[in-house]
């Protein structure tokens, strides 16, 4: 890995990293607040039979329990948008964007192999994604403490939640980087990565709302990140294997493709 390139990769993200961290920390605090305020109401609604339970949940999460609320929080479109800034936006433009601007040529004229360029940028962006996720979980713990419901949260399992979340969002990030090394312009790379994220998300939400389509959730990476299960000590190792494979395969692809690509002069 190249230190200056790694450092500069972090520096490029600095401003949005700060803004998103503040926002996602606030979101993390808000979820236990909402849970404490509305969980009884929602439970009563479910018990009354006025609403099907599926409609009172979101994805694999719900407000019936604090761990369920955490799952809901991680699958909420707001979190998708905030983490997507880095896992989709920053990754898919990282190399294709340099390529389009013409700065990749200046970068690669330094004594750095393409493998090192890829590794340095990947490490930098994965670190940002991991930090943002950590900030969200930290906000959640702070919110639970403020609401006095920390006793409902098995803190000892939180590192595993972080690891599992890092694998999920890392998988989208490495996919974005694989797309980025494959195209000369960021547009197609962003489009492909965004489509990958949306399809996964669609399968997860569709399966949670429509019982006949529940099987689609198995094909969603989101379904393999279940904080509620992890906090209950019921982590399925297969989830880790699936997310691990989705994380590693794009890296292998990028390491094979990027060094072999011809980089003609920018248009």
């Amino acid at each position, binding site marked *: 890995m190249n230190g200056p390139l790694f450092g500069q990769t972090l520096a490029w993200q600095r401003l949005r990293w700060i803004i998103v961290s503040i926002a996602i920390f606030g979101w993390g605090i808000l979820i236990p607040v909402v849970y404490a305020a509305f969980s009884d109401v929602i439970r009563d609604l479910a018990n009354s039979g006025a609403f099907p339970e599926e409609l009172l949940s979101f994805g694999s999460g719900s407000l019936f329990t604090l761990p369920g609320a955490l799952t809901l929080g991680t699958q909420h479109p707001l979190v998708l948008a905030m983490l997507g800034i880095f896992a989709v936006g920053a990754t898919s433009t990282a190399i294709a964007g340099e390529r389009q601007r013409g700065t990749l040529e200046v970068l690669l004229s330094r*004594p750095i*192999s393409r493998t090192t360029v890829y590794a340095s940028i990947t490490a930098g962006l994965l670190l940002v994604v991991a930090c943002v996720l950590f900030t969200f979980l930290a906000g959640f713990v702070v919110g639970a403490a403020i609401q006095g419901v920390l006793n409902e949260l098995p803190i000892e399992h939180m590192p595993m939640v972080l690891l599992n979340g890092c694998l999920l969002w890392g998988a989208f990030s490495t996919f974005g980087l694989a797309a980025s090394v494959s195209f000369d312009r960021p547009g197609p790379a962003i489009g492909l990565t965004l489509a990958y994220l949306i399809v996964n998300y669609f399968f997860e939400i569709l399966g949670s709302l429509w019982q006949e389509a529940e099987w689609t959730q198995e094909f969603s990476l989101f379904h393999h990140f279940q904080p509620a299960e992890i906090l209950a000590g019921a982590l399925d190792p297969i989830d880790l294997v699936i997310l691990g494979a989705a994380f590693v395969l794009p890296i292998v692809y990028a390491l094979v493709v990027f060094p072999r690509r011809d980089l003609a002069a920018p248009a």
Partner: protein
Amino acid sequence: METTDAIISTRGLTKHYGSVDALTDLSVDVRHGEIFGFLGPNGAGKSTMIRTLLGFLHATHGSASVLGMDVATESVEIRRLTGYLPGGIALYDSLTGEQVLDYLARLQGRTPYRRADLVERLRMPQADLRRRVRDYSRGMRQKIGVIQALQHDPELAILDEPTEGLDPLMQQAFYGILADLRAEGRTIFFSSHVLSEVERVCDRVGIIRQGRLMAVHEVRELLARRRRRVSIQWRGAAPDASTIPGLADVTVDGDRLFGTLHGEVSEFVRAVASPSLEDLTIEPASLEEAFLEYYAEEAPTPAVAGPSEAK
């Protein structure tokens, strides 16, 4: 055929993009300590050649070495010892000029010994260096490009159209920098389509057309071979022009004779020297004429200059 002092050496270098032949069987040696001009119009293959030397492109056939190292397997080490200025350089717009130079120097891993001197000679005051690149004019960007390529005192500088965007004063300063680098034993590979600057700064020139190397010549030799327009005036009748060596296309207008001179000037001058000679004008040969002659033909002829001639 290997030469020990070749800093750049290509043998049969070929690059195809599908059915497009970007480079075809290109063999050339660039000697240590020379300024080698790579001359050709846009799209001739100059940038493709440079990008192949730096490992951005992979050759379809043939081989190339830079500083004695293979471009396919030792590209990183080659780039450690090389300074590169891309044509129409793109920089990081959100950084200041100084931050760009610092960042690229850190990536290079070598101390930017020459930066202070280059900054002074190219007249980039500190106030300008502290401005963001997005506010720079094209000329200022080009100056940063030149500085980043040379600041770490590379053994070999590969410069793709380096004077693009520089005003005439800065072009002069740049030529001075090149002369100093050559005097210090550095090698410069210089691509251009500006004939006058190649004529001015280069020791040798390679002419490329449609991906094929048409010729490699000493610039002096190329100029010496060029036809010159001459005008001679005698007192009294003009002598028999057929006795003057190298003179052709002769026309006589009163006591003045016009013609085209081929070959050595000294022989011609000896032949026309006489007490009745009143005026003699020899227009200097320009590289442009030499260049246009190569390009005047309909289709490219396979490499006039093979490796042996190219040395």
